[in-house]
């Protein structure tokens, strides 16, 4: 349609967890077809940012548009890789079952996955080299394998915009390079990806653009421009005691 509309537009977004603000007034306009890293210290609100965009945590103020439309209308165009620790890996499902879940959003209520859905799921497993494990129960997988299953599930969503929460955390080197190859391939196909990442040295080499975040947006731009000592200092070193103090006060006095 309109190729110029940004993949994601965030305007003056404020988010509070249990009445305590964790993100303040975020403004972002994310172009299409880029691989974007979200970096910042612990508690900077990296996960919260992508969860808020997807409507998983309530927004206190501001708005979000995905491909020029409210999130609710473009859910089918969004893929999600949650943190690996967020689920119970003893759950009685096979690898194939999990990847098929990527198709559920498209299927709509009641309808069962079809043969084609299974084909898509199989192809996605193949891409992350997990096809031989399709019938395994998920608890028998290593951390890297679990992460690749989650990635395959997101691929099965066949989306245009992907949110990934720490896909590189706790994975082996082989998985890390497999994931990064896959992300580059997705970018070639015009997909946009926002990836929460916590490792600075690799952030520089992996991503086209970076979002530097610490409760508020510190900087957003091409990696070469924003990966500077000064900006990183502001993101990581610069103490934000005032912001966190005020957040505490807001929580106590129940303003939000």
């Amino acid at each position, binding site marked *: 349609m309109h190729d110029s509309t940004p993949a994601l537009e965030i305007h003056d977004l404020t988010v509070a967890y249990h009445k305590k603000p964790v993100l303040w007034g975020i403004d972002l306009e994310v172009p299409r077809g880029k691989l974007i890293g979200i970096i910042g210290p612990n508690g900077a609100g990296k996960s919260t940012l992508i969860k808020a965009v*997807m409507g998983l945590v309530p927004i206190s103020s501001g708005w979000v548009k995905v491909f020029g439309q409210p999130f609710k209308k473009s859910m089918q165009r969004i893929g*999600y890789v949650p943190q690996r620790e967020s689920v119970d890996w003893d759950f*009685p*499902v096979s690898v194939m079952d999990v990847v098929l879940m990527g198709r559920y959003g498209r299927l709509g209520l*009641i309808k069962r996955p079809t043969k084609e859905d299974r084909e898509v799921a199989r192809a996605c497993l193949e891409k992350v080299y997990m096809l031989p494990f399709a019938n395994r129960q998920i608890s028998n997988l290593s951390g890297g394998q679990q992460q690749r299953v989650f990635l395959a599930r997101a691929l099965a969503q066949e989306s245009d915009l992907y949110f990934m929460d720490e896909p590189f955390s706790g994975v082996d080197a082989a998985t890390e390079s497999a994931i990064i190859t896959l992300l580059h391939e997705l970018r070639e196909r015009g997909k946009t990806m926002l990836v929460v990442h916590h490792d600075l040295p690799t952030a520089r080499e992996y991503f086209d653009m970076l979002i530097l975040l610490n409760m508020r947006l510190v900087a957003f731009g091409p990696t070469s421009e924003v990966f500077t000592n000064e900006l990183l200092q502001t993101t990581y070193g610069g103490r934000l005691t005032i912001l966190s103090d005020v957040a505490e006060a807001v929580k106590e006095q129940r303003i939000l």
Partner: protein
Amino acid sequence: MTSARREHPEHGSGLSAAISARANYHTIAALRRLAHCAILLLSILTATSAHAAKVSDISKTNLGEQALRFFTLQDPSLRYALLGSILLGITCGVLGSFIVVRKMALVGDALSHAVLPGVALGFLWGQTKDPFAIFIGATIAGLIGTTAVGLIKQTTRLKEDAALGLVLASFFAVGICLVTMIQRLPTGNKSGIDKFLFGQAAAISAGDVRLIAIVAVLSVAAITLFYKECLVSSFDVGFARAAGLPTRLIHHGIMLLLAFAIVVALQAVGVVLVSAMLITPAAAAYLLTDRMHWMLVLAAVFGMISGVLGAFLSFLGNNLPTGPFMVLAASAVFVSAFLFGPRHGVLVRWWKHRSRADRIGRENALKSIYRVLEERDFHGDGVSLRELAQLRRESIEEARAESVELKRHALVSTHEEGNMLFFTPTGWQRACEIVRNHRLWELYLTNAVQFAPDHVHEDADKIEHVLGTETVRELERRLQFAKRDPHGRLIPGLDDIYPGNLVRRA
């Protein structure tokens, strides 16, 4: 029924113990349930013996007759009881499976106790045991209870377990007070309200069965139709919501069905134990399978079996409370799954452990024989029991027992009345592999991980038995096909595996 009550005063004492047990909820729920069962079991046992002592000529023919009556389905009330129990078993199994995987077992327990005041009020409303009034009352009480839990969680610092415990105990206490009040009413004695505590399948009426059937059909239909939605929102609720599925609606739907199931199950299973019927069959199924749809099927079957067995045993014992028997049957199924499950069962695990230990024992003996040969530079093929025992610092008898084991697995052949041992080709191959694994690992630890040479032996003694072929190839590559271990001994290579090479090497 009234006379039955008077004959079993123990029920009352069991009950008061159960009530006082409420107070300590905050500890572990499982413990409490165990105590429940023990108290109930005791009271039932003493009740039956007292009963038998009074009617001294209760005989086998009487039991036989009862069993016959059960299986020929002569009594209409029995037919209702049986049908009701079967449908309940299925409902509880199917819903219980999702309760277990969603980690909501305690919620089920709290909910089942919280409905008691509603049951009593529903009864007071019509002054009779009108299933519909009781259903409405219990559902409302359940909803209030769940809301209270939510409120406590949101507005205080208390976590879910404490909130559940609080609501469970206080609602149950109110319920018990109301039930006692009703029993004191002029009509109270004939009411059968006391049957709601421990369940009485025989008291299930046509109206009850109708309600049970409606809930069963509703639950099975909902879970079948929305299986995929229930599955994904139970496994990964964040992902399900991001994919646009109505996770809140699903959660509330499951909770509502759960409340319905508990309410209709009250008559048969009783308030105290109904949550066990939800959890136990599902837990047994969880131990037996790795796939959700099989878990649902198995749990439904287990629930059904437990329901029928419970109704049957209660009928045999002259209408003893049904709930405890159903739960006992379900627990028996669980214990069997725990012990004999083909994949996660205790027995299978024990057996695997045993055979692994045996294999390690054999491999260690093979290694020792190899070492004896190595120490005399592979002169002569035979190793005597004495030499083996000396190297292993053990008695001749122990060495003999090992040699018998090795012979049984065709790893060695014995000569001179079992005193001399010779490797078979397989035995030699296996011995070489173990020694190679051991020495490669020692070398790897000293070279790559930089352990001190005297630290590596014990470690290698364990690792040598678990190294797979792939790993060994990788180790060989990394160590550049080294020939000697850190202690300077030769590492047997692939070309040593055949006995012909033994001579050449010597």
